[in-house]
């Protein structure tokens, strides 16, 4: 048995630098630490292995066992390195996720958020999937609509989008910004057909997308072509076998569905891809929802601003009108105080003319006075016409006297129609501020209705009563009653009852009365006659210029 010396230096406690070709700079400690040197260098040194081989068969096979142990150690080492690598890439991913999450929270613009999200899904710095498609719920149209997609349309297109941007070594957020500003419009146009084809009505609950959305559970479909819930055309449009679907749901609201795949490199989708996207779905959902809320807030704000602007305008207009009314009132007062003197001057000039012969020179002078006063009167008329158009014609009136006057005017008509009229007027009623002409119009109208409702004669009673702060005029007739349709319409503006018989003109009366702080109450039953109350407020100070019918 020949025992060759060991070929290498593993058995020497202290070696020189040139003894081992595998030692690197900075590893001088291994020159004197034999055990560490064995673990770190010798186990992988071919000369050491050769020495072990030479020892083979000796020491009851111990070198064999030793070789096996070494292989095991090397295997474990490799798997530690691979785990370390996965750990690194995973923590890189988490960091990206965090970054993009933060970025998502900084934006309230929906398109910008979508740009960031799809950048994160498809860029190498993000999740590195080939293609991402976002479908969003459109509540108004009850549809899940293709909103946006990022990725290559064809194989040669693959990676180009990101190679251009990634060449700059931007952060994920910066990349998203660049993408949003430079590529988004183009990408959207590129995928327009696909997005349109992927839209599904929300009610189609047996559709793969809607099912996934309703079940709120992310899935990887490994063989899309075999899936029974996706129509053939949509399978064709997507053109992939493997697809990740992540529903975006916040509380009870369905926001959308995120699809991702590896359409180009066909890399199998791993459970980690799904996990990453799932984690990502939550901040994305919040961001999209918040953007929608923000948009609504802006709209509401705009509406409020608009309302405020209109209010200000109206206030200014009211102010202007008040000023105009004041100017008009002043003009009117001046004009009125001038009219009497003019009447007198011109009047006497005319009186004098009569006694002056035509050939008398003084006649011309008088005619001149008459002409000039006439001219002034014309000017006055214009001024008054203007200012009077701005003033209501309200005055304080005794309603009993007014009713008596109306009754006197209508008496003949009533008698001809064989209608007996009974007045029941409460004495000592307070005066009320009303537009006399309009109030009389209303009374006459109501009486005329009563006459019409009693073609064969009957009885009308008119009563006045004070009721608290109101004075009430009640007119009752024993006629056929008012058509319920007309009755209901009385309170509606612009309702015309023309050619509908009894009740004609009542809507107009109701409106006229409203303009004077009064209102109509009507009670009518077919065959029971009709009672119409006009209720007028007694105290109506400072109501000038507020009449709605002006």
């Amino acid at each position, binding site marked *: 048995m020949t025992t060759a010396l060991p070929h290498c230096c593993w058995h020497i406690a202290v070696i020189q630098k040139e003894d081992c070709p595998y030692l690197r700079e900075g590893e001088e400690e291994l020159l004197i630490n034999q055990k560490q040197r064995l673990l770190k260098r010798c186990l992988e040194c071919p000369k050491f292995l050769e020495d072990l081989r030479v020892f083979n068969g000796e020491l009851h096979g111990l070198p064999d066992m030793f070789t096996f142990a070494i292989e095991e150690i090397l295997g474990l080492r490799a798997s530690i390195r691979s785990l370390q690598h996965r750990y690194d890439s995973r923590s890189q991913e988490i960091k990206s996720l965090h970054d993009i999450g933060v970025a998502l929270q900084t934006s309230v613009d929906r398109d910008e958020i979508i740009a960031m999200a799809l950048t994160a899904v498809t860029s190498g710095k993000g999740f590195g999937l080939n293609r991402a498609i976002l479908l969003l719920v459109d509540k108004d149209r009850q549809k899940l609509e293709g909103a946006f997609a990022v990725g290559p349309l064809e194989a040669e297109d693959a990676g180009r989008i990101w190679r251009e941007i990634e060449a700059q070594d931007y952060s994920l957020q910066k990349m998203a910004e660049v993408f949003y500003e430079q590529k988004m419009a183009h990408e959207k146009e590129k995928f327009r057909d696909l997005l349109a084809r992927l839209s599904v009505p929300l009610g189609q609950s047996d559709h793969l997308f809607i099912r996934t959305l309703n079940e709120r559970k992310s899935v990887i479909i490994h063989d899309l072509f075999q899936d029974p819930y996706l129509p053939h055309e949509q399978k064709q449009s997507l053109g992939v076998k493997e697809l990740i679907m992540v529903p975006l749901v916040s509380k009870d609201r369905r926001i959308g569905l995120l699809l991702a795949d590896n359409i180009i490199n066909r890399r199998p989708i791993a459970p980690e891809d799904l996990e990453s996207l799932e984690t990502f779905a939550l901040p994305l959902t919040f961001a999209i929802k918040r953007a929608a809320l923000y948009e609504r807030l802006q709209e509401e704000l705009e509406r409020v601003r608009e309302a405020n602007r209109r209010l200000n305008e109206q206030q200014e207009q009211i102010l202007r009108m008040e000023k105009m009314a004041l100017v008009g009132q002043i003009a009117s007062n001046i004009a009125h105080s001038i009219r009497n003197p003019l009447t*007198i001057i011109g009047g006497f000039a005319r009186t004098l003319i009569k006694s002056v012969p035509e050939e008398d020179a003084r006649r011309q002078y008088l005619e001149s006075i008459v002409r000039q006063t006439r001219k002034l*009167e014309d000017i006055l008329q214009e001024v008054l016409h203007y200012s009077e158009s701005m003033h209501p014609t309200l005055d304080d009136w005794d309603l009993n006297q007014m009713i008596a006057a109306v009754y006197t005017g209508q008496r003949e008509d009533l008698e001809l129609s064989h209608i007996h009229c009974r007045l029941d007027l409460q004495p000592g009623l307070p005066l009320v501020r009303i537009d006399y*002409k309009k109030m009389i119009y209303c009374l006459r109208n109501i009486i005329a209705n009563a006459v019409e409702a009693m073609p064969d004669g009957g009885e009308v009673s008119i009563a006045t009563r004070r009721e608290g702060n109101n004075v009430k005029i009640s007119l009752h007739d024993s006629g056929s009653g008012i058509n319920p349709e007309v009755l209901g319409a009385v309170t509606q503006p612009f309702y015309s009852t023309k050619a509908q018989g009894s009740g004609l003109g009542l809507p107009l009366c109701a409106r006229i009365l409203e303009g004077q702080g009064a209102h109509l109450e009507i009670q009518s039953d077919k065959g029971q006659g009709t009672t119409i109350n006009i209720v007028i407020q007694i105290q109506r100070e400072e109501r000038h210029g507020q009449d709605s019918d002006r």
Partner: protein
Amino acid sequence: MARILIVDDERDIRLLYSAELTDEGYEVDTAGTGDEAARLLQSRTYDLIVLDIQMKGESGLQILQKIVQERSEMPVILNTAFSCYKEDFSSWLADAYVVKSSDLTELKEEINRLLAKKQG
């Protein structure tokens, strides 16, 4: 000869109207206030009254309401500087409504018309 009462708080208007109407052959009385008018209306009968609306104290409209109540057969002409009352009362209570003017033709025509109607 028809007797006419002029009610106006402006002295010179009263003077002008009575001169002109007397000239037309009417017997004319004038009153400067509502009270004065009421006293005259108590003491004698008039065929027609010309009433100013805008007066100090009792307004022509208030006098008008009384007249309508007590002497509904007597024609009343409202005569005022305010044309705005015209739309309101002409057809309801007063028999005529004439806006003041240096040209008294309209006033005289209305007086003639109403007196003729009353007699006829």
